[in-house]
């Protein structure tokens, strides 16, 4: 989930041009892998007093992309929901007129819940109903209301806890409550691999922005052949995949003849946040049961469900895997050329659904188009896992664990929602019929292509949704402006 290859060396693939970096939150360019511990504070500002954002920034200064990482032992990022912006003095009409529809309708609008698969009849909910959202009008209500998300990154547990306590107290003084908190962690292996709870190396594949706003190698049109995506896909105001400046919120300000539009979106982005709970016992039980039918072992099947082997190397036909590069698993590949029919990495596996690369091309001539098209639907992932590691013999439900999915995009519909609907949960993805993502979709069949005949197994549900919302992650200038008003 972090931006580095296996969290190995916390080295950036890209950086912003200096002028833009100063106005952008550090969260955009870095996963803060050098700060392995973090706390996510979900804030309810219902009873907030004026000046609460100023008070917050005093105890938790928001890190900019220009700050040198090596010098920092703490970093912070902040984002606001649609109703959170109302708590900062923007009226609802202005929010609806200037932000994208999914942002102000919310993730829990009944039609959107259906599209995103967040329904109890799919068995994809953790508990009876999702716990938190920003509770905008027209959406299904949740018990907790979240107006802002503050993520605090620190070097160790002690520091993270101290800081979170300090921030919580300061916020109480200005009437802001912590609705819920999630301790996040990377927890590197001794060999410096960050794994998610099922045991797989995570965060290997990330888009690499390019364009005039990017510093160094990718500044011009020199884009990475597989993962190069225009900066505007993740930052408002910069050229996006449709060759136009990614449209962010413009806010009318001033009175009558002095009125103008303030570019609130400048160097900001939308942040998609989803609290996903992982049922590790259920996962391995299901893998064992299904693998037994195939006379294979559970790990073999789990690797096919994910599409990579546990250390992150791509599965190739003939029970082989892709050779490593010096930096870690090789991620510079298309599916069409390496494994068109999914004999190694199954067509319906999680990595292939989440980013099909050129794999949806009907023939070799269409590969370049297919890759370009797939790259119009990428996310900059910033998620981290929460909860303790699973221990042998433990039962699901004893301790909660999972992934706090956080991803940046400037067009929620075309990026996050498209991926979820058209790829991950699509029952007719590629040439498959009647099956969804075997890792995070509802229980159902999963096809593993093979010669002479495919395998078909049934897998259960192991990832469940507990709450989520669309946030606005402002640039530094926008944050200052909001602070003046709220």
């Amino acid at each position, binding site marked *: 989930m972090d931006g580095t290859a296996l969290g190995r060396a916390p080295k950036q693939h890209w950086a912003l041009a200096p002028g833009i970096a100063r106005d952008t939150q550090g969260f955009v360019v870095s996963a803060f892998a050098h700060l392995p511990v973090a706390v996510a504070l979900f804030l309810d500002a219902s009873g907030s007093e004026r000046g609460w954002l100023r008070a917050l920034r005093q105890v938790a200064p928001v890190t900019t992309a220009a700050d040198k990482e090596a010098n920092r032992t703490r970093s912070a990022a902040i984002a606001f929901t649609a109703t959170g912006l109302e708590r900062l003095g923007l009226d609802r009409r202005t929010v609806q007129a200037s932000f994208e529809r999914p942002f102000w309708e919310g993730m829990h609008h009944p039609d959107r819940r259906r599209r995103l698969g967040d329904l109890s009849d799919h068995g994809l909910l953790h508990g009876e109903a999702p716990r938190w959202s920003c509770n905008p009008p027209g959406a299904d209500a949740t018990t907790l209301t979240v107006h802002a998300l503050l993520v605090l990154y620190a070097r160790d547990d002690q520091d993270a806890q101290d800081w979170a306590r300090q921030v919580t107290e300061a916020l109480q003084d200005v009437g802001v409550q912590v609705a819920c908190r999630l301790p996040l962690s990377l927890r590197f292996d001794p060999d410096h691999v960050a794994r998610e709870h099922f045991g797989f190396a995570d965060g290997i594949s990330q888009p690499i922005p390019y364009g005039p706003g990017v510093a160094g190698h990718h500044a011009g049109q020199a884009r990475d052949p597989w993962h190069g995506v225009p900066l505007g896909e993740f930052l408002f105001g910069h050229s996006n995949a449709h060759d136009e400046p990614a449209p962010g919120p413009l806010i009318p300000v001033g009175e009558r003849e002095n009125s103008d539009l303030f570019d609130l979106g400048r160097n900001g982005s939308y942040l998609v946040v989803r609290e996903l709970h992982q049922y590790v016992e259920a996962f391995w039980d299901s893998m064992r049961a299904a693998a037994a039918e195939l006379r294979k072992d559970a790990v073999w099947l789990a690797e096919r469900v994910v599409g990579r082997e546990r250390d992150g190397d791509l599965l190739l036909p003939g029970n082989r895997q892709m050779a490593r590069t010096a930096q870690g698993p090789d991620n510079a590949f298309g599916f069409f050329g390496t494994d068109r029919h999914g004999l190694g990495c199954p067509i319906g596996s999680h990595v292939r659904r989440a980013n099909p690369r050129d794999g949806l091309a*009907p023939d070799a001539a*269409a590969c370049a*188009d297919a890759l370009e098209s797939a790259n119009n639907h990428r996310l900059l992932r910033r998620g981290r896992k929460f909860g303790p590691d699973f221990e042998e013999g433990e039962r699901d439900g004893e301790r909660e664990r999972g992934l706090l999915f956080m991803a940046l995009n400037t067009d929620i*519909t075309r990026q996050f*929602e498209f991926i979820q609907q058209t790829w991950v949960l*699509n029952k007719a993805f590629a040439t498959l019929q009647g099956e969804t993502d075997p890792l995070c979709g509802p229980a159902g069949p999963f096809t593993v292509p093979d010669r*002479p*005949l495919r395998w*078909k197994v049934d897998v259960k549900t192991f990832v469940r949704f507990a709450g989520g919302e669309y946030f606005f992650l402002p640039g530094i200038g926008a944050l200052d402006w909001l602070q003046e008003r709220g």
Partner: protein
Amino acid sequence: MSSQSAELTPSLARGAEAAPGSIAAFRPGTAPARAAPTAARARDEAARHATRQTILSVVLEVEPKRAEILRRKLDALREEESGTHPPFNELCREVPVLHFLSVTIFPDDHHDPVLVIEANFDGPPAPFWEMLETHIGPHLRDMLRCCKPPRDADAALFQAITRDGATAPLAPYLAKRATLPAISHQGNRGLSRARIEQETVLFDAVQERLRREPRATFAGMTAQQIHAWLRAEMRREFPWLDSAGPPRIADAEHYGDWARLLGFAGLVLLGLGLPAILAWALLPWWSVPVLSLLACLPSLVLLRRELREAGPTVQVPRSPAILGAAAVLLVLGILPVLLALLARIRRLERCDPPQDAPPVDEAEVARMSAREDRLTQNHMGSVVLVKPGVLRAIVIRAGLRGLGLLLRVRPRARAGYLASMRTIHFAHWALISNGGRLMFFSNFDGTWESYLDDFIEKAHNGLTLAWSSGVGFPPTRFLWFEGATHGRRFKAWARSSMAASNLWFSAYPTLTVEQIERQHAIAEGLRKAGMEAEEAEAWTARL
């Protein structure tokens, strides 16, 4: 929301049911309630297996005062049809030639509302209209009574079918008012509904048979052996596997498609060559090429900026073949006409006002949002105004016709592809209101967003040509470039032109175009007595 989505939610249930349920829904009634004469029944049977599909729409002007009544009647009809288990069961059974049907009322700021019945079915129109009338005749008559009487020769016919107590058949009137598409596209061309259903049942049986077989059976088997084994297993249950199916595109249709395309190309050349023909007739022979060359100059001057600016979008032709063709056209005197047209079009394009922020009707958006994404497939209906001017009038007609004829003959398009996308079951454009408005319908797989993204990312050129004559369309370049690639603006424009369909029927709501082709490939494979090793491997991969 419940009433609007009523026809869709249960359909989903129908789709979600186990295979046997959908088989029941698929089997057309063998003994329809009506006592059809033998000849008519034979004709219906022929239509059911026809490999050629008809796409048409009937556009009726609604009496504005009755628009609300009409809306309620449509709601009632939808409730009635979708109230069955599975939903639309009767329509499905009684009209076995029908693939997709939609009925939509399009409100319009500049016109009275229109009622559009969009139908995609097997065989010729007459049997279809009769089947539809037999099933929902009284409803159709009620709908027609909410429409304005025509002011042309059909007035008497309209009077006869809509007056109180009228029982005269509706089919002749509907057939007369039908508009044929200017351009259409089909994902599974040549597959009748009967055949799709037959192959669905076979597919389910194959999957079930494979599921029951212990995996050990296949250990060590080759693809050829699997094919032979499965064929033996299936032949008992499906005796039709022993005979070859009809070709999807009959010879007559194939040659007809080519003849129409060539005829069209001839007419276009004739039109462009008209000035040259006059010149050849009136002037000495040697003067024509000279005049032709001179006549090209003003257009080239006008277009020089374009050629400089075009950059990567327009490849200035350098291949000998293209240069040679240009030389021939120059000598013949056609090139100056072409260049003049391009220069004029480019000028129009530079001045056409695009609509960057089309109005958003919140209520309509909510209706569409509530209705969409309940099935694997979705429906889109749109009406836009056409840009004014003689040149635009010619361009839209010639463009749509030419592109449409090309799609009929290109092997990839015949196989269901537009560029590299294959998600459209049935789509068409038609000019209505004497060419004043352009109507678009599509029945497609996946979400509306993904459908439009496919167009934006993969098939934007053809789409831009077809829609660039719509008022407010994003800026284009030479009718072919840009346009739809302004993705966000294009989506906003398209969404604003849509109306939520009041009634929408799909005969096979769980099947995608890809899946229908997959089932077809499996069926065709099982019909073969034997296969080469390589072919068998490709075939077993689709199981």
